[in-house]
C-alpha cells in the first residue's frame, strides 16, 4: 500500500488535499470521483476513454507528466476552456512521481 498526496481544487474553487493510492491502477479522474469532488454524471462521462473532456483539469505544479497520447491530444483540441496546462484526468495514472501534484478541475461544459 502506497499513497501519494495530491492537491485538487474543485470547480467551486475549494482546495482538497487527498491521498491517492498508486497500487490500485487509478487515474486522476477516478481519484476525483472516489472523493466525490465533482458531482457524479459531470466527470468521467465516457468512463476514461479520452472520448469526452469532462475530466479536463489544469496542472498547477511543475511535475513532469507522461506525454499526451494522440487520442488525448485530439480530444483536448475539441474541448472547451482549454489552456496550455490542460490535461484529461483519466489519462494521468497515479504513480509515485506524482506525489505533491497540484491540479484544478476545469469548468463543466454546459
Amino acid at each position, binding site marked *: 500500500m502506497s499513497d501519494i498526496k495530491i492537491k485538487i481544487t474543485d470547480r467551486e474553487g475549494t482546495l482538497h488535499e487527498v491521498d491517492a493510492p498508486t497500487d490500485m491502477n487509478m487515474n486522476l479522474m477516478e481519484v476525483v470521483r472516489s472523493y466525490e469532488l465533482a458531482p457524479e454524471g459531470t466527470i468521467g462521462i465516457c468512463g476514461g476513454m479520452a472520448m469526452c473532456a469532462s475530466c479536463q483539469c489544469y496542472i498547477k505544479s511543475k511535475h513532469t507528466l507522461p506525454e499526451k497520447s494522440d487520442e488525448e491530444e485530439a480530444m483536448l*483540441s475539441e474541448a472547451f476552456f482549454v489552456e496550455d496546462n490542460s490535461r484529461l484526468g483519466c489519462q494521468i495514472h497515479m504513480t509515485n512521481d506524482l506525489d505533491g501534484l497540484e491540479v484544478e478541475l476545469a469548468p463543466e461544459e454546459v
Partner: protein
Amino acid sequence: MIKTDILIIGAGPTGLFAVFEAGLLQLKCHLIDALPQAGGQCSEIYPKKPIYDIPGFPEVLAGDLVNNLMEQIRPFQPGFTLGERAENIEKLDDGSFIVTTNKGTQHHAPIIAIAGGLGSFEPRKPLLKNLSKYEDNGIAYMIKEPEVYRNRKVVIAGGGDSALDWSIFLADVAAEVTLVHRRNEFRGALDSVEKVQQLKDQGKINLITPAEIVGLQGEDHLESVLIRKTTNGSEDVLLEVDDFIPLFGLSPKLGPIANWGLEIEKNAIKVDNTLDYQTNVPGIYAIGDVNTYPGKLKLILCGFHEATLMCQSAYQRIFPDKKYVMKYTTVGGVTGFDGSKKEAPKAVVKAIE
C-alpha cells in the same frame, strides 16, 4: 399514435435486451432514441472498442455486441422511433402513459422503461457570445438538408470525422467552404483527411488551422465570424459567411426526462433496487446507467439484470391476475412474434440392443 406494451426510452444495450426479456413474456416493445441508430454509446462513441466483461464473451467489440443484441431481439419485432428525443410524458386516467417526442411522435403504453444511459446525445456548443441569437439564424449544429447550403458561404469548425466529411460534401454544394480547426492534425478516417487535403490544394476548401472562431457578428442573421489564428493572437480575421456549422461532437444530457417528476440523485433516476427498478412513479421503471441505488454500478451486465427483473414486474402490472412462473429458454424455447420458433432439440430415446 404508436401503441405498445413496454415503451423503452433509449436503444442502448440495456434497452435492447429488455425487448428480449419482454418478448419471452409475450410483451411487445417500442424504443425511442435521440440518435439515428440503435446501440447508444456502444454505437455512437466506441463501436470499435473491445469490452471484456460481458458474461460469456471473453472479448467483444461494442459494435458487435449491439449487432448481436439486434439479432437476438429480431423475433420480437421491436418498433423504433430513432432520431427523436422523448420530450413529454402524460399519465392517463387508466394509469397508462403517452410519451411525445420533440418531433411530435406520440407513443402510448401501460409501462415506460427508461433505459436512457447518460441521457440523450446533444451537440456540443462552442462558448461564444450571442451564440443563441444566431441559432437557426445562420448557426446549425447538424446538417439535415445539405441543399439549404447551395451557393452559400459556409464555415465549419471541428476536427473530427463529421467536420471533414461535411466539408468534403459541401465543397461541391456551397459557394465557399472554410474549415477551421484548433490544430493542424485532424482525427478522422485517413481517406477523409486526404480528400480534404486534395480539395484544399485545388482551392475548393479554405482551410484555416490552427485557429478558432472567437466571435460572431450580424444584425439579425449571422453575417461574419471572427477567426483567431492560435499562433498569432493579435491578428483576428473577419470572414464573411452565411452559415456557421460547429461540429464538436455530441455530449449526453439527461434532458427533458429530468422534468418528468421522477426522483433524481447524482444526475440519475432513483429506483427501488430491492424489487423491480421502478421509480417513484408507478409504471415508470429506470434501468441501466440512467438509474441509481445503493451500490449501483454502471455496467452493461448490470443493465441486463435490471432489464430482466423490470420485465417480470411489468408483466405483473399489466396482468395482475395472471399466474406466471419464469421459464428457462432451454426448456421453453423462444417463440417470436414473427412466427419463428427456436427450441432445444429433443433428446433421442432409443434402446441399445
